[in-house]
């Protein structure tokens, strides 16, 4: 079931689409709202949201699974996105990715055993003049080197919810 807060925020989005039959236009925003509170979108999350948007759970899941930043599997407390596209490739993202894998002990797509970090490769972050670039949650880091990465990670380790 949606919490009161989730429902309120989704209804605010719904108000943008006055005409009947347009409720589903709010679905990406609704998925992001629920993901913000729950960390990811479970099957129950899909059912909760579909109900209020005049969509079937299957229709909503079709949209949810289309987007790489709607998480249909559980992720860690922090999600690390590493750009693997051309400018970051030229500037050596592979070394940064290897270092991340070593430091975290996980492969791309996996979550650390303590649930702290999930590591996801993503297409271009639009920060090509600062390649290689990564994002952790909502924060962008550019010109990332192994040394800088260690410093960045130290700000996150031990962070408790």
């Amino acid at each position, binding site marked *: 079931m949606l919490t009161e807060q989730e429902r309120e925020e989704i209804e605010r989005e719904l108000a*943008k689409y006055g*005409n009947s039959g*347009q*409720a*589903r*236009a*709010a*679905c*990406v*925003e609704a*998925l*992001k709202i629920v993901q913000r509170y729950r960390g990811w979108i479970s099957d129950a999350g899909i059912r909760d949201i579909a109900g209020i*948007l005049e*969509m079937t759970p299957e229709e909503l899941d*079709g*949209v949810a699974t*289309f*987007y*790489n*930043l*709607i998480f249909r599997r559980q992720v860690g407390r922090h999600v690390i*996105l590493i750009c*693997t*596209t*051309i*400018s970051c*490739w*030229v*500037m050596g993202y592979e070394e940064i990715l290897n270092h991340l894998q070593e430091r975290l002990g996980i492969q791309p797509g996996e979550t650390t055993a303590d649930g702290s970090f999930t590591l996801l490769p*993503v*297409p*271009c*972050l*639009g*920060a*090509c*003049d*600062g*390649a290689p670039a990564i*994002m952790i949650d*909502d*924060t*962008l880091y550019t010109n990332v080197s192994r040394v800088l990465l260690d410093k960045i990670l130290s700000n996150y380790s031990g962070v408790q919810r």
Partner: protein
Amino acid sequence: MMDRPLTGDMRPDREPLSIKEYEEKGGYQAARKALLGLAPKEAQDLVRDSNLRGRGGAGFNTGLKWSFVPMGDAAPRPKYLIANADELEPGAFKDRMLIEGNPHQLIEGMIISAYAIQADISYVFLRWAYKAAAKRLEAALTEAYSSHYLGENIFGSGYSLEFHLHTSAGRYICGEETALLNALEGKRATPRAKPPFPQVSGLWGKPTVVNNVETLCNIPHIINNGAEWYKGLGRSGDSGTKIYGVSGRVKNPGLWELPIGTPMREIIGEHAGGMREGYRFRSVIPGGASTEFLTEEHLDLEMDYDSVQKAGSRLGTGTMIVIDDRTCPVGAVHNIEQFFAQESCGWCTPCREGLPWVVKTLHAIENGQGESGDLEILQQLTDSLWLNKTFCALAPGAMEPLKSGLKIFRDDFLRHITEKRCPWK
């Protein structure tokens, strides 16, 4: 700041201009002028005459694009104007800077453009990763609404405009204008068939114009200073300025607003500072990943739509990715094709099945497992996945760097196959 209309007024620290600062620099005067002094058709004609061409990469005359929207009392309602801010072309980061540095310039450009087509509702379709841009745009929208520059009866002109920000959740295909419409409607973001074109049947089947952010940011300046002034800004016969970008192993990667038609040598050699110590220029992708590689012989090319097209590539987004002599060109092509294969929406078979085939073949070649017929297969695929053989332009866009890469880097491809290894590793 007349020679750099888009960025000349921005703060050096790239913090956003508040509405007060923007107005002190003449902001919202163009919107007043258009809404109170010009008929919608006059605004359309002015922009058409300026020859402002679509800065998202297609290079179509903006005013002409608008002119296909049904006008008058019989036109279907509501009509929509959408800013395409889903900047996901690899190598492109210009729209981020325009929104972050001066969100009101985009809003003003959208008010005028919406008025010119008599749109009722406008959206900014913003990519997920641009968190700072989203925050600054939200703040600017609140300011614009409180000043009554958005909403009902703007400037007492009788014209009203509703405005929303939509932030997406990833996927390159959302930037394709018909896929973007499906995304906004809350459907899977697969492209639609054209015709009908969005100007006639777009969002929820209503007349819709989708313009790139940089395109829209030009509008207030054209209204203020006129079509002739705008035409005079270019260096090579094309109109206006262009936000050029350079990334790769250059000394000073970044973005610069320059007269359109500035030669590539000047952009890479002077503005980007030339190559870093120990690296030599090998080639360049001139306008984002979906454009053809160019080489040293093209360095004096004037970077405008027609000149780059004549040289066999496209100006695209105008954001160049430099490939140096210590970077494996086969690896570069492989990386680019991997991006397109991953970002295919899966709707049409040639794109869904063809791009992974390209990637598998390139992967094999890069890892020393290429076979003698591989280059011919890749060559055939550049034809099978070309325009009019796929549902939208994604796969043909992916074929541009492949096609040119196979030609320009032919010796490098052959070395990988005959030596059974990557010579760069």
